[in-house]
Protein backbone atom coordinates (compact mmCIF):
# COMPACT_ATOMS: atom_id res chain seq x y z
CA UNK A 1 0.00 0.00 0.00
CA UNK A 2 1.53 3.26 -1.05
CA UNK A 3 0.28 6.70 -0.27
CA UNK A 4 1.41 9.42 -2.60
CA UNK A 5 -0.56 12.36 -1.31
CA UNK A 6 -2.67 12.25 1.80
CA UNK A 7 -5.95 13.77 0.78
CA UNK A 8 -7.89 15.79 3.27
CA UNK A 9 -11.62 15.56 2.82
CA UNK A 10 -13.78 18.54 3.53
CA UNK A 11 -16.44 16.35 5.03
CA UNK A 12 -15.26 16.49 8.61
CA UNK A 13 -18.65 16.04 10.25
CA UNK A 14 -18.41 12.26 10.07
CA UNK A 15 -14.97 12.30 11.58
CA UNK A 16 -16.00 14.65 14.32
CA UNK A 17 -18.97 12.54 15.21
CA UNK A 18 -16.79 9.48 15.39
CA UNK A 19 -14.04 11.01 17.44
CA UNK A 20 -15.69 13.69 19.50
CA UNK A 21 -13.04 16.33 19.07
CA UNK A 22 -13.18 18.71 16.11
CA UNK A 23 -9.95 19.09 14.20
CA UNK A 24 -8.01 22.24 14.71
CA UNK A 25 -7.82 24.31 11.55
CA UNK A 26 -4.38 24.96 10.15
CA UNK A 27 -2.96 28.27 11.27
CA UNK A 28 -0.03 28.21 8.91
CA UNK A 29 -0.76 29.33 5.38
CA UNK A 30 2.35 30.11 3.40
CA UNK A 31 2.07 33.29 1.48
CA UNK A 32 -0.42 34.89 3.80
CA UNK A 33 0.47 37.93 5.84
CA UNK A 34 2.08 41.17 4.81
CA UNK A 35 3.24 41.04 1.22
CA UNK A 36 4.49 44.49 0.39
CA UNK A 37 7.42 44.82 -1.99
CA UNK A 38 10.83 45.29 -0.40
CA UNK A 39 12.67 48.56 -1.01
CA UNK A 40 16.42 48.92 -1.57
CA UNK A 41 16.98 49.45 2.16
CA UNK A 42 15.77 45.91 2.87
CA UNK A 43 18.25 44.45 0.39
CA UNK A 44 21.14 46.48 1.78
CA UNK A 45 20.30 45.39 5.35
CA UNK A 46 19.99 41.76 4.31
CA UNK A 47 23.25 41.95 2.42
CA UNK A 48 25.05 43.28 5.51
CA UNK A 49 23.59 40.53 7.71
CA UNK A 50 24.30 37.92 5.05
CA UNK A 51 27.95 38.96 4.87
CA UNK A 52 28.19 38.95 8.67
CA UNK A 53 26.75 35.43 8.68
CA UNK A 54 29.27 34.04 6.23
CA UNK A 55 32.38 36.07 7.07
CA UNK A 56 33.51 34.03 10.11
CA UNK A 57 33.24 30.87 8.01
CA UNK A 58 35.34 32.45 5.27
CA UNK A 59 37.86 33.58 7.87
CA UNK A 60 38.11 29.97 9.10
CA UNK A 61 39.14 28.93 5.60
CA UNK A 62 41.65 31.79 5.28
CA UNK A 63 43.22 31.08 8.67
CA UNK A 64 43.35 27.35 7.97
CA UNK A 65 45.31 27.90 4.77
CA UNK A 66 48.15 30.07 6.12
CA UNK A 67 50.82 29.68 8.78
CA UNK A 68 49.98 30.94 12.25
CA UNK A 69 52.47 33.79 11.89
CA UNK A 70 50.79 35.02 8.72
CA UNK A 71 47.33 34.84 10.34
CA UNK A 72 48.43 36.82 13.40
CA UNK A 73 50.47 39.35 11.42
CA UNK A 74 49.76 43.05 11.89
CA UNK A 75 48.16 42.93 8.43
CA UNK A 76 46.30 39.61 8.29
CA UNK A 77 45.78 37.81 4.95
CA UNK A 78 42.42 38.15 3.22
CA UNK A 79 42.65 35.46 0.58
CA UNK A 80 43.14 31.73 1.12
CA UNK A 81 46.79 30.67 1.03
CA UNK A 82 48.54 27.48 0.02
CA UNK A 83 49.08 25.80 3.37
CA UNK A 84 45.65 24.18 3.68
CA UNK A 85 46.80 20.62 2.99
CA UNK A 86 49.72 20.95 5.38
CA UNK A 87 47.50 22.22 8.19
CA UNK A 88 44.83 19.60 7.58
CA UNK A 89 47.54 16.96 7.79
CA UNK A 90 48.87 18.38 11.04
CA UNK A 91 45.39 18.62 12.56
CA UNK A 92 44.71 15.05 11.47
CA UNK A 93 47.78 13.80 13.32
CA UNK A 94 47.51 15.92 16.46
CA UNK A 95 43.86 15.41 17.33
CA UNK A 96 42.99 11.83 16.30
CA UNK A 97 40.76 13.46 13.69
CA UNK A 98 40.39 10.27 11.65
CA UNK A 99 38.93 8.45 14.63
CA UNK A 100 36.94 11.54 15.59
CA UNK A 101 35.24 11.67 12.18
CA UNK A 102 34.25 8.01 12.36
CA UNK A 103 32.97 8.53 15.91
CA UNK A 104 30.98 11.60 14.94
CA UNK A 105 29.36 9.74 12.05
CA UNK A 106 28.50 6.76 14.28
CA UNK A 107 27.10 8.93 17.09
CA UNK A 108 25.09 11.26 14.85
CA UNK A 109 23.88 8.39 12.66
CA UNK A 110 22.66 6.27 15.58
CA UNK A 111 21.00 9.22 17.32
CA UNK A 112 19.28 10.33 14.11
CA UNK A 113 17.99 6.86 13.21
CA UNK A 114 16.68 6.19 16.72
CA UNK A 115 15.15 9.65 17.08
CA UNK A 116 13.31 9.30 13.76
CA UNK A 117 11.86 5.91 14.64
CA UNK A 118 10.83 6.61 18.24
CA UNK A 119 9.65 10.16 17.66
CA UNK A 120 7.46 9.15 14.73
CA UNK A 121 5.86 6.41 16.81
CA UNK A 122 5.30 8.69 19.80
CA UNK A 123 4.19 11.58 17.61
CA UNK A 124 1.65 9.33 15.90
CA UNK A 125 0.32 8.11 19.26
CA UNK A 126 -0.08 11.67 20.54
CA UNK A 127 -1.59 12.93 17.30
CA UNK A 128 -4.05 10.22 16.36
CA UNK A 129 -4.57 7.70 19.14
CA UNK A 130 -6.86 8.12 22.10
CA UNK A 131 -5.62 6.96 25.46
CA UNK A 132 -5.92 7.90 29.09
CA UNK A 133 -3.54 10.66 30.18
CA UNK A 134 -2.69 11.80 26.66
CA UNK A 135 -2.85 15.54 27.37
CA UNK A 136 -0.91 15.29 30.61
CA UNK A 137 1.78 13.12 29.10
CA UNK A 138 2.22 15.47 26.13
CA UNK A 139 2.60 18.38 28.56
CA UNK A 140 5.23 16.32 30.40
CA UNK A 141 7.11 15.78 27.13
CA UNK A 142 7.16 19.51 26.38
CA UNK A 143 8.13 20.34 29.97
CA UNK A 144 11.29 18.25 29.63
CA UNK A 145 12.48 20.76 27.01
CA UNK A 146 13.08 23.27 29.80
CA UNK A 147 15.51 21.09 31.78
CA UNK A 148 19.13 21.92 30.96
CA UNK A 149 21.47 18.91 30.68
CA UNK A 150 23.79 20.56 33.21
CA UNK A 151 21.46 19.48 36.01
CA UNK A 152 22.10 15.79 35.52
CA UNK A 153 25.65 15.44 34.18
CA UNK A 154 27.35 14.58 37.48
CA UNK A 155 25.31 11.44 38.28
CA UNK A 156 25.13 10.62 34.57
CA UNK A 157 28.91 10.51 34.47
CA UNK A 158 28.99 8.24 37.54
CA UNK A 159 26.26 5.98 36.12
CA UNK A 160 28.08 5.62 32.83
CA UNK A 161 31.31 4.60 34.48
CA UNK A 162 29.30 2.25 36.72
CA UNK A 163 27.79 0.31 33.82
CA UNK A 164 31.07 0.27 31.92
CA UNK A 165 30.25 2.94 29.34
CA UNK A 166 32.74 5.47 30.70
CA UNK A 167 34.51 7.17 27.80
CA UNK A 168 32.60 5.06 25.27
CA UNK A 169 30.29 6.30 22.52
CA UNK A 170 27.33 4.57 24.19
CA UNK A 171 27.46 7.18 26.95
CA UNK A 172 26.81 9.90 24.34
CA UNK A 173 24.32 7.98 22.19
CA UNK A 174 21.89 6.55 24.71
CA UNK A 175 20.82 9.70 26.60
CA UNK A 176 19.73 11.32 23.30
CA UNK A 177 17.93 8.44 21.59
CA UNK A 178 14.58 10.28 21.66
CA UNK A 179 13.99 14.02 21.79
CA UNK A 180 11.05 15.93 23.18
CA UNK A 181 11.29 18.33 20.27
CA UNK A 182 11.09 15.42 17.84
CA UNK A 183 7.97 14.00 19.49
CA UNK A 184 6.36 17.43 19.40
CA UNK A 185 7.41 18.05 15.79
CA UNK A 186 6.05 14.73 14.53
CA UNK A 187 2.83 15.14 16.49
CA UNK A 188 2.22 18.55 14.90
CA UNK A 189 2.90 17.22 11.44
CA UNK A 190 0.89 14.03 11.72
CA UNK A 191 -2.15 15.66 13.28
CA UNK A 192 -2.41 17.76 10.11
CA UNK A 193 -1.15 15.45 7.39
CA UNK A 194 -2.65 12.12 8.42
CA UNK A 195 -6.43 11.83 7.92
CA UNK A 196 -8.36 9.58 10.28
CA UNK A 197 -10.10 8.00 7.29
CA UNK A 198 -6.85 6.43 6.17
CA UNK A 199 -6.29 4.76 9.53
CA UNK A 200 -9.90 3.63 9.73
CA UNK A 201 -9.84 2.20 6.24
CA UNK A 202 -6.76 0.18 7.10
CA UNK A 203 -8.37 -1.09 10.29
CA UNK A 204 -11.49 -2.15 8.46
CA UNK A 205 -9.22 -4.03 6.11
CA UNK A 206 -7.95 -5.92 9.12
CA UNK A 207 -4.68 -4.17 9.91
CA UNK A 208 -3.50 -4.14 13.48
CA UNK A 209 -1.73 -1.11 14.96
CA UNK A 210 1.80 -2.07 13.95
CA UNK A 211 0.63 -2.68 10.41
CA UNK A 212 -1.03 0.76 10.37
CA UNK A 213 2.25 2.35 11.46
CA UNK A 214 4.33 0.50 8.90
CA UNK A 215 2.14 0.90 5.85
CA UNK A 216 0.36 4.21 6.53
CA UNK A 217 2.00 6.38 9.18
CA UNK A 218 5.61 5.98 8.03
CA UNK A 219 4.93 6.80 4.34
CA UNK A 220 2.80 9.83 5.27
CA UNK A 221 5.40 11.01 7.79
CA UNK A 222 8.32 10.79 5.37
CA UNK A 223 8.64 14.51 4.49
CA UNK A 224 8.60 15.52 8.16
CA UNK A 225 11.04 12.73 8.97
CA UNK A 226 13.46 14.13 6.39
CA UNK A 227 13.40 17.51 8.09
CA UNK A 228 13.56 16.12 11.63
CA UNK A 229 16.40 13.85 10.53
CA UNK A 230 18.47 16.77 9.27
CA UNK A 231 17.79 18.91 12.33
CA UNK A 232 18.67 16.00 14.64
CA UNK A 233 21.82 15.22 12.70
CA UNK A 234 23.00 18.84 12.86
CA UNK A 235 22.36 18.94 16.59
CA UNK A 236 24.03 15.60 17.33
CA UNK A 237 27.02 16.49 15.15
CA UNK A 238 27.48 19.85 16.88
CA UNK A 239 26.78 18.74 20.46
CA UNK A 240 29.59 19.78 22.77
CA UNK A 241 28.84 19.89 26.51
CA UNK A 242 28.06 16.30 27.44
CA UNK A 243 30.42 14.67 24.87
CA UNK A 244 33.23 16.90 26.16
CA UNK A 245 32.64 15.64 29.71
CA UNK A 246 31.89 12.03 28.80
CA UNK A 247 34.52 11.22 26.19
CA UNK A 248 38.31 11.37 26.40
CA UNK A 249 41.25 12.25 24.21
CA UNK A 250 41.64 8.72 22.86
CA UNK A 251 38.02 8.36 21.77
CA UNK A 252 36.61 11.81 20.88
CA UNK A 253 33.93 13.08 18.55
CA UNK A 254 34.97 15.87 16.19
CA UNK A 255 33.79 18.65 18.51
CA UNK A 256 35.55 17.08 21.49
CA UNK A 257 38.75 16.69 19.48
CA UNK A 258 38.47 20.31 18.45
CA UNK A 259 38.04 21.45 22.04
CA UNK A 260 41.03 19.41 23.14
CA UNK A 261 43.14 20.66 20.26
CA UNK A 262 42.61 24.25 21.40
CA UNK A 263 43.10 23.34 25.07
CA UNK A 264 46.55 21.86 24.40
CA UNK A 265 49.56 23.67 25.79
CA UNK A 266 50.45 25.94 22.85
CA UNK A 267 47.90 25.40 20.11
CA UNK A 268 48.85 26.43 16.59
CA UNK A 269 45.88 28.58 15.54
CA UNK A 270 46.10 27.61 11.87
CA UNK A 271 45.95 23.93 12.74
CA UNK A 272 43.01 24.57 15.09
CA UNK A 273 41.23 26.36 12.25
CA UNK A 274 41.97 23.43 9.92
CA UNK A 275 40.24 21.20 12.48
CA UNK A 276 37.31 23.61 12.69
CA UNK A 277 37.02 23.53 8.91
CA UNK A 278 36.89 19.72 8.88
CA UNK A 279 34.17 19.67 11.52
CA UNK A 280 32.05 22.34 9.79
CA UNK A 281 32.44 21.43 6.13
CA UNK A 282 30.16 18.34 6.03
CA UNK A 283 27.27 20.29 7.56
CA UNK A 284 27.80 23.25 5.23
CA UNK A 285 27.52 20.88 2.28
CA UNK A 286 24.29 19.48 3.74
CA UNK A 287 23.07 23.04 4.17
CA UNK A 288 23.82 24.05 0.62
CA UNK A 289 21.94 21.02 -0.69
CA UNK A 290 19.01 20.90 1.73
CA UNK A 291 18.97 24.50 2.97
CA UNK A 292 15.47 25.18 1.71
CA UNK A 293 14.04 22.13 3.46
CA UNK A 294 15.79 22.89 6.76
CA UNK A 295 14.51 26.47 6.64
CA UNK A 296 11.01 25.20 5.97
CA UNK A 297 11.32 22.67 8.78
CA UNK A 298 12.34 25.22 11.37
CA UNK A 299 9.54 27.53 10.26
CA UNK A 300 6.83 24.88 10.31
CA UNK A 301 8.05 23.39 13.59
CA UNK A 302 7.92 26.79 15.19
CA UNK A 303 4.58 28.13 14.13
CA UNK A 304 2.32 25.21 14.80
CA UNK A 305 2.72 25.68 18.54
Amino acid at each position, binding site marked *: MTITSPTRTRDSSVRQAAHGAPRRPSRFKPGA*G*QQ*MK*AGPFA*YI*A*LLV*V*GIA*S*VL*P*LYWTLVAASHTQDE*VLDSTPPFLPGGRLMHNLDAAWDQAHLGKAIVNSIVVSGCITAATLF*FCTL*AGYAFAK*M*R*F*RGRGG*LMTAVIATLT*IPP*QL*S*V*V*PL*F*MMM*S*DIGWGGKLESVIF*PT*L*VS*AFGVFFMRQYLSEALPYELIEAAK*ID*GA*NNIRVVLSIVLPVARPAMMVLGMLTF*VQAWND*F*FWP*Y*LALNQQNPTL*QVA*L*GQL*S*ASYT*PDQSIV*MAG*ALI*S*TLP*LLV*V*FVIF*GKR*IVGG*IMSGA*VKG
Partner: protein
Amino acid sequence: MATSTPTRDTYGPPDRGSQQISAARQKWRSRLWRFDDKASPYAYIAPFFLVFGAFGLYPLIYTGWIALHRVEMTGLDQMQWVGWDNFSRILQDSEFWTAVSNTFLIGVMSTVPQLLVALGLAHLLNYKLRASTFWRTIILTPYATSVASAALVFALVFRADGGLLNWVLHFIGLGHTNWTNGHWTSKIAISIIVIWRWTGYNTLIYLAAMQAVPTDLYEAASIDGASRWQQFRKVTIPSLRPTILFTIVISTIGSMQLFGEPLLLEGGTLGATGGNENQYETLSVYLYNYGWNLGHLGPAAAVAWAMLALLLIIAAINWLIGRFVRKSAA
Protein backbone atom coordinates in the same frame (compact mmCIF):
# COMPACT_ATOMS: atom_id res chain seq x y z
CA MET B 1 -12.21 3.91 29.22
CA ALA B 2 -14.92 2.11 27.38
CA THR B 3 -17.18 5.14 27.57
CA SER B 4 -14.61 7.36 25.92
CA THR B 5 -14.37 5.16 22.83
CA PRO B 6 -17.95 4.17 22.11
CA THR B 7 -17.50 3.67 18.40
CA ARG B 8 -14.32 1.61 18.54
CA ASP B 9 -16.09 -1.68 17.96
CA THR B 10 -17.36 -0.54 14.60
CA TYR B 11 -13.76 -0.75 13.42
CA GLY B 12 -13.26 -4.28 14.69
CA PRO B 13 -11.53 -7.05 12.77
CA PRO B 14 -12.99 -8.09 9.46
CA ASP B 15 -15.57 -10.77 9.35
CA ARG B 16 -13.73 -12.94 6.90
CA GLY B 17 -15.38 -16.29 6.38
CA SER B 18 -17.16 -16.20 9.71
CA GLN B 19 -18.74 -19.59 9.16
CA GLN B 20 -15.39 -21.33 9.48
CA ILE B 21 -14.13 -19.49 12.57
CA SER B 22 -15.46 -20.85 15.82
CA ALA B 23 -17.13 -18.55 18.35
CA ALA B 24 -14.35 -19.05 20.91
CA ARG B 25 -11.69 -18.11 18.45
CA GLN B 26 -13.58 -15.04 17.40
CA LYS B 27 -13.89 -13.96 21.03
CA TRP B 28 -10.16 -14.44 21.49
CA ARG B 29 -9.47 -12.43 18.38
CA SER B 30 -11.58 -9.48 19.42
CA ARG B 31 -10.01 -9.50 22.89
CA LEU B 32 -6.60 -9.46 21.29
CA TRP B 33 -7.78 -6.63 19.07
CA ARG B 34 -8.94 -4.58 22.02
CA PHE B 35 -5.71 -5.20 23.89
CA ASP B 36 -3.75 -4.07 20.84
CA ASP B 37 -5.78 -0.84 20.74
CA LYS B 38 -5.33 -0.11 24.42
CA ALA B 39 -1.67 -1.02 24.80
CA SER B 40 -0.27 0.30 21.52
CA PRO B 41 -0.31 4.03 22.31
CA TYR B 42 1.54 3.41 25.56
CA ALA B 43 4.05 1.19 23.80
CA TYR B 44 4.68 3.94 21.21
CA ILE B 45 5.34 6.68 23.74
CA ALA B 46 7.21 4.42 26.18
CA PRO B 47 10.69 4.88 24.60
CA PHE B 48 10.63 8.60 25.29
CA PHE B 49 9.67 8.20 28.92
CA LEU B 50 12.08 5.31 29.48
CA VAL B 51 15.04 7.23 28.05
CA PHE B 52 14.08 10.44 29.82
CA GLY B 53 13.51 8.61 33.10
CA ALA B 54 16.82 6.77 32.97
CA PHE B 55 19.08 9.53 31.64
CA GLY B 56 17.20 12.71 32.61
CA LEU B 57 14.88 12.50 35.58
CA TYR B 58 16.67 9.89 37.67
CA PRO B 59 20.07 11.65 37.41
CA LEU B 60 18.37 14.98 38.11
CA ILE B 61 17.07 13.71 41.45
CA TYR B 62 20.25 11.75 42.17
CA THR B 63 22.22 15.01 41.74
CA GLY B 64 20.61 16.25 44.95
CA TRP B 65 21.82 13.18 46.79
CA ILE B 66 25.37 13.47 45.42
CA ALA B 67 25.42 17.14 46.42
CA LEU B 68 25.27 15.98 50.05
CA HIS B 69 28.29 13.73 49.65
CA ARG B 70 32.01 13.91 49.05
CA VAL B 71 32.78 12.21 45.73
CA GLU B 72 36.10 12.52 43.95
CA MET B 73 36.84 11.92 40.29
CA THR B 74 39.63 9.56 41.40
CA GLY B 75 37.23 7.19 43.21
CA LEU B 76 33.76 7.41 41.75
CA ASP B 77 32.38 4.52 43.81
CA GLN B 78 33.27 6.08 47.17
CA MET B 79 30.61 8.40 48.54
CA GLN B 80 31.02 9.97 51.94
CA TRP B 81 28.18 11.85 53.67
CA VAL B 82 29.04 15.49 54.31
CA GLY B 83 25.59 17.05 54.64
CA TRP B 84 25.30 20.67 53.52
CA ASP B 85 29.07 21.22 53.34
CA ASN B 86 29.16 21.31 49.53
CA PHE B 87 26.43 23.91 49.42
CA SER B 88 28.03 26.16 52.03
CA ARG B 89 31.33 25.72 50.20
CA ILE B 90 30.04 27.05 46.90
CA LEU B 91 27.81 29.70 48.47
CA GLN B 92 30.84 31.12 50.31
CA ASP B 93 32.95 31.04 47.17
CA SER B 94 33.06 34.48 45.59
CA GLU B 95 33.84 32.80 42.26
CA PHE B 96 30.39 31.17 42.36
CA TRP B 97 28.69 34.54 42.68
CA THR B 98 30.87 35.92 39.89
CA ALA B 99 29.68 33.02 37.75
CA VAL B 100 26.05 33.70 38.66
CA SER B 101 26.30 37.37 37.72
CA ASN B 102 28.31 36.57 34.56
CA THR B 103 25.69 34.05 33.44
CA PHE B 104 22.96 36.58 34.05
CA LEU B 105 24.77 39.49 32.34
CA ILE B 106 25.87 37.48 29.30
CA GLY B 107 22.34 36.07 29.12
CA VAL B 108 20.79 39.53 28.93
CA MET B 109 23.52 40.91 26.64
CA SER B 110 23.07 38.10 24.16
CA THR B 111 19.33 37.48 24.31
CA VAL B 112 17.98 41.03 24.05
CA PRO B 113 19.91 42.21 20.94
CA GLN B 114 19.54 38.81 19.34
CA LEU B 115 15.76 38.79 19.57
CA LEU B 116 15.43 42.45 18.55
CA VAL B 117 17.60 41.93 15.48
CA ALA B 118 15.74 38.73 14.67
CA LEU B 119 12.43 40.59 14.85
CA GLY B 120 13.68 43.29 12.48
CA LEU B 121 15.16 40.76 10.07
CA ALA B 122 11.99 38.71 10.04
CA HIS B 123 10.08 41.87 9.19
CA LEU B 124 12.41 42.50 6.23
CA LEU B 125 12.14 38.90 5.06
CA ASN B 126 8.37 39.15 5.23
CA TYR B 127 8.36 41.68 2.38
CA LYS B 128 8.04 40.43 -1.15
CA LEU B 129 11.69 39.70 -1.88
CA ARG B 130 13.73 38.51 -4.80
CA ALA B 131 15.51 35.23 -3.95
CA SER B 132 13.80 35.00 -0.58
CA THR B 133 14.92 31.41 -0.01
CA PHE B 134 18.53 32.44 -0.60
CA TRP B 135 18.32 35.12 2.10
CA ARG B 136 16.63 32.78 4.54
CA THR B 137 19.24 30.09 4.01
CA ILE B 138 22.21 32.43 4.23
CA ILE B 139 21.17 33.97 7.54
CA LEU B 140 20.71 30.43 8.89
CA THR B 141 24.23 29.24 7.95
CA PRO B 142 25.71 30.07 11.38
CA TYR B 143 23.24 27.57 12.84
CA ALA B 144 25.13 24.83 10.96
CA THR B 145 28.33 25.75 12.79
CA SER B 146 29.17 24.03 16.05
CA VAL B 147 29.80 25.90 19.29
CA ALA B 148 33.38 24.70 19.15
CA SER B 149 34.11 25.98 15.62
CA ALA B 150 32.31 29.27 16.23
CA ALA B 151 34.06 29.92 19.53
CA LEU B 152 37.48 29.13 18.04
CA VAL B 153 37.03 31.40 15.02
CA PHE B 154 35.83 34.24 17.17
CA ALA B 155 38.72 33.60 19.56
CA LEU B 156 40.96 34.55 16.63
CA VAL B 157 38.83 37.59 15.80
CA PHE B 158 38.95 38.86 19.40
CA ARG B 159 42.65 38.19 20.02
CA ALA B 160 44.51 41.12 21.54
CA ASP B 161 47.56 40.70 19.28
CA GLY B 162 46.90 39.92 15.66
CA GLY B 163 43.15 39.73 16.15
CA LEU B 164 40.98 40.65 13.19
CA LEU B 165 38.78 43.03 15.17
CA ASN B 166 41.70 45.01 16.57
CA TRP B 167 43.14 45.26 13.07
CA VAL B 168 39.85 46.75 11.84
CA LEU B 169 39.69 49.15 14.82
CA HIS B 170 43.28 50.17 14.21
CA PHE B 171 42.53 50.67 10.52
CA ILE B 172 39.68 53.10 11.19
CA GLY B 173 41.76 54.89 13.80
CA LEU B 174 40.23 53.55 17.03
CA GLY B 175 42.31 52.25 19.91
CA HIS B 176 43.61 48.79 20.66
CA THR B 177 41.46 46.71 23.04
CA ASN B 178 42.35 43.62 25.02
CA TRP B 179 38.94 42.06 24.47
CA THR B 180 39.22 38.90 26.58
CA ASN B 181 40.79 40.67 29.56
CA GLY B 182 38.17 43.31 30.19
CA HIS B 183 35.11 42.62 32.31
CA TRP B 184 32.67 44.09 29.84
CA THR B 185 34.58 43.49 26.63
CA SER B 186 34.95 39.76 27.32
CA LYS B 187 31.22 39.48 27.94
CA ILE B 188 30.55 41.41 24.74
CA ALA B 189 32.81 38.99 22.88
CA ILE B 190 30.92 35.95 24.17
CA SER B 191 27.54 37.59 23.53
CA ILE B 192 28.56 38.25 19.93
CA ILE B 193 29.34 34.55 19.40
CA VAL B 194 25.91 33.63 20.77
CA ILE B 195 24.15 36.33 18.75
CA TRP B 196 25.95 35.24 15.58
CA ARG B 197 24.92 31.60 15.97
CA TRP B 198 21.28 32.05 16.98
CA THR B 199 19.87 35.18 15.33
CA GLY B 200 19.06 33.40 12.06
CA TYR B 201 17.23 30.63 13.86
CA ASN B 202 15.05 33.07 15.82
CA THR B 203 14.45 35.11 12.68
CA LEU B 204 12.89 32.11 10.96
CA ILE B 205 10.66 31.41 13.95
CA TYR B 206 9.42 35.02 13.89
CA LEU B 207 9.02 34.95 10.12
CA ALA B 208 6.85 31.86 10.33
CA ALA B 209 4.66 33.53 12.93
CA MET B 210 4.43 36.72 10.83
CA GLN B 211 3.29 34.79 7.77
CA ALA B 212 0.45 33.34 9.82
CA VAL B 213 -0.94 36.81 10.60
CA PRO B 214 -4.11 37.25 8.50
CA THR B 215 -3.76 39.75 5.64
CA ASP B 216 -7.12 41.33 6.48
CA LEU B 217 -5.65 42.80 9.65
CA TYR B 218 -3.09 44.74 7.61
CA GLU B 219 -5.70 45.76 5.04
CA ALA B 220 -7.97 47.05 7.78
CA ALA B 221 -5.08 48.89 9.38
CA SER B 222 -4.01 50.55 6.14
CA ILE B 223 -7.61 51.59 5.38
CA ASP B 224 -7.59 53.23 8.80
CA GLY B 225 -4.51 55.12 7.62
CA ALA B 226 -1.84 53.31 9.66
CA SER B 227 1.72 53.77 8.44
CA ARG B 228 4.03 50.79 7.95
CA TRP B 229 5.66 51.42 11.32
CA GLN B 230 2.27 51.69 13.02
CA GLN B 231 1.18 48.46 11.36
CA PHE B 232 4.35 46.77 12.60
CA ARG B 233 3.77 48.01 16.14
CA LYS B 234 0.02 47.65 16.35
CA VAL B 235 -0.60 44.55 14.24
CA THR B 236 2.57 42.49 13.87
CA ILE B 237 3.96 42.68 17.40
CA PRO B 238 0.70 41.88 19.22
CA SER B 239 0.07 38.93 16.89
CA LEU B 240 3.55 37.64 17.63
CA ARG B 241 3.27 37.88 21.42
CA PRO B 242 3.09 34.11 22.10
CA THR B 243 5.99 33.46 19.72
CA ILE B 244 8.07 36.19 21.35
CA LEU B 245 7.39 34.69 24.76
CA PHE B 246 8.41 31.28 23.42
CA THR B 247 11.74 32.58 22.06
CA ILE B 248 12.43 34.44 25.31
CA VAL B 249 11.95 31.24 27.31
CA ILE B 250 14.08 29.17 24.93
CA SER B 251 16.87 31.77 24.79
CA THR B 252 16.86 32.19 28.56
CA ILE B 253 17.25 28.47 29.09
CA GLY B 254 19.95 28.42 26.43
CA SER B 255 21.89 31.24 28.04
CA MET B 256 21.82 29.41 31.39
CA GLN B 257 23.80 26.66 29.66
CA LEU B 258 26.55 28.67 27.96
CA PHE B 259 29.63 26.46 28.08
CA GLY B 260 31.60 26.05 24.87
CA GLU B 261 31.86 29.78 24.12
CA PRO B 262 33.58 30.79 27.39
CA LEU B 263 35.57 27.54 27.63
CA LEU B 264 37.16 27.99 24.22
CA LEU B 265 37.42 31.78 24.01
CA GLU B 266 41.01 31.63 25.25
CA GLY B 267 41.37 27.86 25.62
CA GLY B 268 43.94 26.14 27.81
CA THR B 269 43.89 26.75 31.56
CA LEU B 270 42.18 30.13 31.16
CA GLY B 271 39.16 28.41 29.61
CA ALA B 272 38.44 26.26 32.66
CA THR B 273 38.42 29.28 34.97
CA GLY B 274 36.72 31.71 32.58
CA GLY B 275 39.66 34.08 32.21
CA ASN B 276 42.38 35.12 34.67
CA GLU B 277 39.87 36.96 36.86
CA ASN B 278 36.90 34.72 36.02
CA GLN B 279 35.59 37.69 34.07
CA TYR B 280 33.65 35.46 31.64
CA GLU B 281 33.16 32.33 33.72
CA THR B 282 29.60 31.03 33.46
CA LEU B 283 27.86 28.58 35.80
CA SER B 284 28.42 25.67 33.43
CA VAL B 285 32.13 26.42 33.25
CA TYR B 286 32.21 26.71 37.05
CA LEU B 287 30.53 23.30 37.31
CA TYR B 288 32.99 21.83 34.83
CA ASN B 289 35.95 23.34 36.63
CA TYR B 290 34.89 21.94 40.01
CA GLY B 291 33.92 18.51 38.74
CA TRP B 292 36.14 17.71 35.80
CA ASN B 293 39.14 20.01 36.22
CA LEU B 294 39.60 19.88 40.00
CA GLY B 295 37.84 16.50 40.34
CA HIS B 296 35.37 17.34 43.16
CA LEU B 297 32.00 16.02 42.01
CA GLY B 298 30.13 16.84 45.24
CA PRO B 299 30.37 20.62 44.88
CA ALA B 300 29.74 20.25 41.12
CA ALA B 301 26.43 18.56 41.95
CA ALA B 302 25.65 21.37 44.38
CA VAL B 303 26.23 23.86 41.53
CA ALA B 304 23.74 21.88 39.42
CA TRP B 305 21.11 22.32 42.12
CA ALA B 306 21.91 26.00 42.43
CA MET B 307 21.26 26.21 38.67
CA LEU B 308 17.91 24.50 39.17
CA ALA B 309 17.03 27.05 41.87
CA LEU B 310 18.00 29.92 39.56
CA LEU B 311 15.93 28.43 36.77
CA LEU B 312 12.89 28.28 39.03
CA ILE B 313 13.43 31.90 40.08
CA ILE B 314 13.63 32.96 36.43
CA ALA B 315 10.49 30.95 35.67
CA ALA B 316 8.68 32.67 38.55
CA ILE B 317 9.78 36.11 37.31
CA ASN B 318 8.66 35.18 33.80
CA TRP B 319 5.29 34.11 35.11
CA LEU B 320 4.87 37.29 37.15
CA ILE B 321 5.78 39.48 34.18
CA GLY B 322 3.40 37.51 31.98
CA ARG B 323 0.59 37.99 34.49
CA PHE B 324 1.38 41.69 34.77
CA VAL B 325 1.36 42.10 30.98
CA ARG B 326 -1.95 40.24 30.66
CA LYS B 327 -3.51 42.32 33.45
CA SER B 328 -2.39 45.62 32.01
CA ALA B 329 -3.58 44.56 28.57
CA ALA B 330 -7.03 43.68 29.89
